[in-house]
């Protein structure tokens, strides 16, 4: 702070003078929120390393990253849909759907496993296209269309597997989720590569910019010729695509397709996305934020397990964290302020005192 003193010492830090409007002020800015998330993660890591001798072991970090990897894929799916100003409730169930289809095709129908994977992912993506098309054609809220799709894909997954896990995949299929490339498991490598690609897509491509524009202000985007419909269909298809890949990775890793995959992923994925700073109202969010948020959720779970805290307490804690994160988001955006609280809570004064009252 001492080095970066403002030219006029009496001007408040927020108000820049016109003279400082130069190339320097046009230079990129750091995303402070993302830095905050990773700082928090670092602090958590240090605390857990002190509390448990098992935390900072290769095995534990690897299992932590494997859990985070598929969560990051569906977290990325949700992040992108939220940035576009919509919601996808079907992403977790889509994992079970794609996994079950691959099981049916490969084990029951004897389709070669690479083709089975391609078909399963394609069918999953097609379901996303259907959600998107119904949303756009009917001008419906995605809350409804993707909830309907959640029912359809979850039910279909159970129906295809008769409610039982279907196992005994061929070796090649299992290798996808369990093999290693050098020291890195495929199940970390594949999501990592996809993740970097998605980040590039969001921050560098025209399509990525259109996702932000549509989510930030739909009518403004449409008035300059950006197609809301095409963007929403693409985004929901992408979400289904990512969830399907995540489903295949899980199915391959566990060597079983099941209709029940994904149910446990909803809470941590949503928590990670919200902690990561993605706004529920559209136009704001980042994949690095989401990855950090998911790492925080996964690390909390891992740490609490190492400290022998019940799984159920972990769920409660994650729920509390989601509430806290969205409340902080509202406060920083000014949606929660003293006048509103005063109107809601009898006797609440806030910081602003009534004039004339003696302090």
């Amino acid at each position, binding site marked *: 702070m001492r080095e970066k003193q403002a030219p006029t010492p009496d001007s408040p830090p927020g108000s820049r003078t016109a003279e400082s409007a130069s190339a320097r002020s046009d230079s990129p800015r750091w995303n402070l929120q993302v830095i905050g998330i990773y700082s928090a993660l670092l602090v958590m890591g240090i605390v857990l390393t002190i509390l448990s001798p098992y935390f900072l072991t290769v095995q534990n970090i690897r299992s932590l990253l494997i859990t985070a990897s598929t969560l990051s894929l569906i977290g990325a799916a949700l992040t992108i849909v939220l940035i576009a100003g919509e919601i996808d409730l079907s992403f977790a169930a889509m994992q079970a759907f794609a996994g079950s289809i691959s099981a049916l095709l490969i084990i029951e129908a004897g389709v070669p496993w690479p083709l089975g994977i391609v078909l399963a992912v394609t069918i999953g993506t097609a379901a996303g296209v259907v959600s998107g098309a119904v949303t756009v054609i009917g001008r419906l809220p995605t809350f409804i269309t993707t909830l309907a799709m959640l029912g359809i894909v979850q039910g279909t997954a159970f129906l295809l597997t008769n409610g039982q896990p279907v196992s005994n995949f061929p070796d090649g299929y299992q290798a996808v989720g369990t093999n290693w490339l050098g020291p890195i498991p495929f199940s970390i490598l594949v999501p990592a590569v996809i993740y970097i690609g998605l980040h590039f897509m969001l921050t560098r491509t*025209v399509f990525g910019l259109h996702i932000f524009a549509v989510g930030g202000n739909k*009518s403004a985007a449409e*008035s300059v010729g950006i197609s809301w419909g095409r963007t929403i269909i693409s985004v929901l298809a992408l979400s289904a695509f990512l969830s399907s890949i995540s489903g295949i990775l899980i199915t391959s890793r566990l060597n079983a397709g099941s209709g029940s995959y994904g149910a446990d992923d909803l809470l941590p994925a949503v928590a990670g996305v919200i902690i990561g700073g993605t706004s529920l109202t559209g136009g704001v969010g980042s994949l690095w934020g989401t990855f950090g948020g998911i790492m925080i959720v996964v690390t909390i779970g891992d740490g609490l397990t190492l400290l022998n805290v019940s799984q159920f307490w972990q769920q409660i804690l994650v729920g509390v964290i989601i509430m806290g994160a969205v409340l902080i988001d509202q406060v920083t955006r000014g949606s929660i302020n003293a006048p509103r609280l005063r109107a809601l809570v009898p006797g609440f004064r806030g910081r602003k005192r009534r004039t004339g009252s003696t302090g």
Partner: protein
Amino acid sequence: MEPTMGGSSAAAATDPIPLLEIRGISKAFGHVQALTGVSLTMREGETVGLVGDNGAGKSTLVKILSGVYDADSGEILMGGQPVEMNTPTDALRHGIGTVYQDLAVVDVLDVARNIYLGNVPRRFGFLVDYRRMYRDARAILTQLRVNMPSVRTKVGELSGGQRQAVAIARTLAQSARIFLMDEPTAALGVAQSEKVNELIADLKADGRTVLVITHNMEHVFEVADRIIVLRNGRRVGVRAREQTTREEIVGLITGAIKGDEN
């Protein structure tokens, strides 16, 4: 009234073919006839004020010109050639850009992204050339003499006048020849409205053609070369600014003065 006025550049435009002409435009929404046989012409470099009471059809006419609505009947001609305006993209291709009053900007995006919204500089067709975008955005703002702290400021953090400047800069970036401005000062304070008037004067000095929709008499007499009055979806008068008075225009708007024959 003021024969030595400097702004008589429009007088030089004696060319027979207007830049933009609309003929007999009608538009109904259900049983409501929003526009009935409206015609108007705009010459290159001219600033035209479109006035009328609420519901007179001003916004409908602008939305037809900007490709948001389809007219039920009538023709739009650019340089004498009939053109189709089915989408905002069509309109832009013909050089017609619209500065909407409020729905134009995306608060969560920065100034440069807003200026190039829908019109980004690209590399390889699918990548955004952000470096060029930021450089060009700064250049456009400098050209407009707009004071903007940074082209990376989120538009949601700007004042009303600055937001309007961003919207105008966007239309400029779209290299529009004709600027349609729908109530550009409606939501602004006095000082900010003054700045927007300056921007319009700059556009005019730059040879751009501007159609300003307003119901602010002060405003229209400050910026317009000609004033077109709509009442109940019909064109009831076209007046050169030097040859009319505020009273006459207000009378045409309210119907106290009987309109011209269409």
